[in-house]
């Protein structure tokens, strides 16, 4: 959706048109509808990781509950999508329709809070819901969940220290607090198991760092060259950029160990000895199905390793 604002401009027109004298039917309204409008992070979909996994969960929910209808967007760089989602909340729903706005990234936290700061102006709020990914609980009527990455990363750090004495953590976006916590967790686990203090390197301080595989490759090469006397470990927390690290380890098979992140990525390299798997597919699928089935939804959930929604999976 390149031009959310332009898209938005059409909405009133569409509604007005349906009220015209000409009773041309624009919509089907026999059955109850469960509309999901999901906003993914910039450069998110296609990452073969977290975001694709989230989408997979949504699709699976829609497959099992066929009256769930999905529409999703990824904004382009610098695009402001807030007004579009605000407009959706302003519209009156049909009696048999339900709307769930999914903000599928922690970067939408401020947007979610601002959208929901005053819900009295929106109609039909009993049938409208907003879900925000990877956030602590907020005061506003927004459903939130968070996958606690630090403890899993701590475990991973311990495992990594069993293979290497030195390690680096590669961040895609240094401004992302969840990633920062994961890096910290890894460092603590790594040191606790006898490893040296890891080097922390960030590709960027914006989400753009999640789509910089060439830079990630270069970093892996530079790091490996600087530690050529022993096989070391890189923990890549850089989304799509992780592919650069994996490529390096495929090409130079015995220089680095590394880890998969978000999904089991062992297929990308034999050097991936372990993956931190976040089951966002299960989380969102369950949430959508519960929403569809009218079950009570938890206002906020923290998923730690005990929940089974995040786990450290050793490569086979």
């Amino acid at each position, binding site marked *: 959706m390149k031009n959310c604002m332009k898209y938005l401009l059409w909405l009133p027109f569409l509604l007005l048109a349906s009220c015209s004298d000409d009773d041309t039917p624009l919509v089907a309204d026999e059955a109850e509808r469960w509309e999901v409008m999901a906003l993914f992070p910039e450069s998110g979909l296609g990452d073969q990781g977290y975001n694709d996994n989230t989408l997979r969960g949504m699709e699976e929910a829609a497959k099992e509950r066929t009256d769930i209808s999905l529409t999703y967007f990824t904004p382009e760089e610098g695009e402001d999508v807030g007004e579009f989602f605000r407009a959706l909340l302003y*519209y009156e729903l049909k009696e048999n329709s339900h709307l769930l706005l999914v903000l599928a990234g922690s970067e939408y936290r401020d947007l979610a809070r601002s959208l929901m700061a005053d819900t009295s102006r929106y109609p039909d709020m009993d049938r409208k819901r907003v879900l925000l990914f990877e956030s602590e609980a907020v005061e506003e009527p927004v459903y939130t969940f968070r996958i606690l990455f630090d403890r899993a990363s701590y475990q991973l750090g311990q495992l990594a220290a069993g293979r290497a004495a030195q390690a680096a953590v590669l961040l895609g976006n240094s401004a992302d607090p969840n990633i920062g916590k994961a890096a910290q967790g890894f460092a603590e686990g790594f040191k606790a198991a006898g490893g040296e203090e890891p080097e922390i390197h960030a590709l960027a301080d914006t989400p753009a760092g999640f789509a910089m595989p060439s830079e990630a490759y270069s970093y892996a090469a530079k790091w490996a060259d600087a530690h050529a006397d022993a096989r070391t470990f890189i923990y890549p927390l850089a989304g799509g950029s992780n592919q650069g690290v994996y490529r390096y380890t495929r090409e130079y098979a015995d220089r680095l160990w590394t880890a998969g992140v978000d999904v089991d990525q062992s297929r990308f390299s034999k050097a991936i000895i372990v993956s931190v798997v976040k089951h966002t597919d299960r989380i969102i699928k369950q949430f959508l199905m519960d929403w569809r089935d009218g079950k009570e939804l938890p206002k906020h959930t923290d998923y730690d390793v005990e929940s089974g929604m995040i786990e450290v999976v050793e490569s086979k």
Partner: protein
Amino acid sequence: MLFALASCSDDDESMRGQTQWKEYKIAVMLPYADGMQERWQRLAEWACATLEEAQAGKEIGVKLSLEWYDESTVDIGQCAETLAAREDIAALIGPFYSADADIAARQLATKQLPLLTAASASELVRKYADTPKRKSNLWALTETDITQCEVMLSKALMYGAKRVSLIARPDIYGQTFIDWFAFQACEMGLEVGSVVEYDPDWLENDMEKLLRDKTDMILCVPSSPDDATTMAQVYRNYQDTGKPRLLFSDVARNAKFLDAGNNLTEGMEGISIAADPESGFKVAYEVRFGEEPTTCEAQMLDAFLLTGIAAYYKEIRGTESLNDALREVVAGHDDDTSPVWTPTALNLVLTYLDLGASPNVRGASGSLDFDAKVFTNVLYTTYAWWEIYEGKFITLDYNTSDGSKRTDASLAGWNWKKQQMQEVEDEGSFVYPERKGNYALVVAGSMGWANYRHQADALCIYQLLKDAGYDDDHIVLVLADDIARNDKNPEQGVVRVRPDGDNVYAGAQIDYRLGDLEPDDIVEILCGKKSGRLPQVIDATERDNILVFWSGHGSQGSLSWGGYDGFYVRHMRQLMKQLNEGNSRRYRKMLWLVEACYAGSIAEGGDGYPGVLYMTASSAYENSKADIYSPTLHTYMSNRFTATLEDELADNITVSLRDLYYKLFRNTVGSHVTIYNQKNFDNLFRCTLEEFTTPVK
């Protein structure tokens, strides 16, 4: 989304209506081999279900009724001819392969019946692009392979390659890469090692030879998975630690290549056409079918949906034909939409159309935005960079041709991108005797109907020289003369360089038929060696300028002579030596204008000789390009470089050679017009074309 939003009516029941369904019969011709039949059919079912659901509640709805043909076994030409003759067929989806799409598109063009395909050979775009007199009926859902070549070269750059080579088969698929590889490599600052056109029977030898050449990366463009396997086999067996990296084109992303055995293809990598990753299609497909989509499935889903949208548009707007409706639908730029493979997003697009808007339609493959000038292929394609690792294809990342998205089709896109122009200095003092007269040698070096354009261009240049004041005693015209009265010529005795052009054959005095001469005779003619066999020669002196125009085929170091022999670099050396022997040379200035593939390579023979300049349609490593395809004649009528030259000769004869070079360079798409021997010739800012085309008064 519309489902969720309330209508303003007090009575929702009143908004419901019985949809009146209109059926469109669509022929589908796709290859069933290798388990693809099931894939295509389930994809079509998905598209049809989406289309139907998206139209629920609308007053008018369209349904696609599909009639299937196996591209692997059907006689493409006969089948397409039958389909074109049938009144009930609204469009053809497929064929999948470029060669088959070419055959089918030709049959369907007569009826303006739309053909939607994922085939991507550049030849298709050039043949079926819109012209002022003819609307395109070909709708390619991928950019041409010009873009794939560009993406492959960008990967070479990413790997730090400095010198690259290409191996491809000169068929309709491989030819695109052969045509564009050297040009694009030059634009990207890469040195071209070799361009090998392989014959499947000699592929092993060709590949070994290429591996011996020291390049950093070889772009492998196999025309079949078997050829890809052979390339990999030779590579594996080749013992050299410094051997180049291989990068395969999309044909190699095939189960056959993967399963070649003995880990033969392990570690091989390449490029293939993919869905737009941001569309979410791949994930949705996997959830739905439990396996990954294969190459071009996203594009074929879009073909079905786009056909449905166009059919809907035709119904609500009363467009004359489905082809016209397609043009309207893909030209929409009012608003971007979500990918239309979900019912909600498709419903929104259809509603936009209901309201008279023109949304920018996006599909599973990305934006379905077509070049507004040629309406032949989309402007956006995503390529997956893959590698075989542990016996599986893994996708490493996704690439598009450029981050800014194109606004022109690939062919045109490369026009403005071209920038490696030579520097022409406004300096140099050259002393020449006063000009007395002019001579011209005009040669069409090919024969046969398929090469119509070479003779047509030679005749056109001949006519323009006559218009400028030449008489036949000063022009030697050499051509096969087998097109004007050719059986395939619907206008007997007529030859044109453009559909609305004059008959350039009228009044032409042909001095020699190609078959009556040998390449050695060209040397004799230019050296003025008259004989009983060669009565018409160039009898020039040191005060006469000579213009040589040559149009035909070429290879490295040779201009083809009717397909059997060649005018080689040694001929050029011999010629220049003889012209410069003795106390006075046999020309004042000599200008060679050469339209042929690898034309630059022939100029080497004249390097260093005074007073001679070569302006060639292509460099020593490039193919030149044909221009203006005639669906009536089923052949090209002209060539890119020469078409611009003809314009200058007709309207701007006083142009300086520097400005002529500039115009030719800018207007010749797909090759670099190159000048040779400039430093031994003259100041190009001061020397004009007129010196060679207009006799002294």
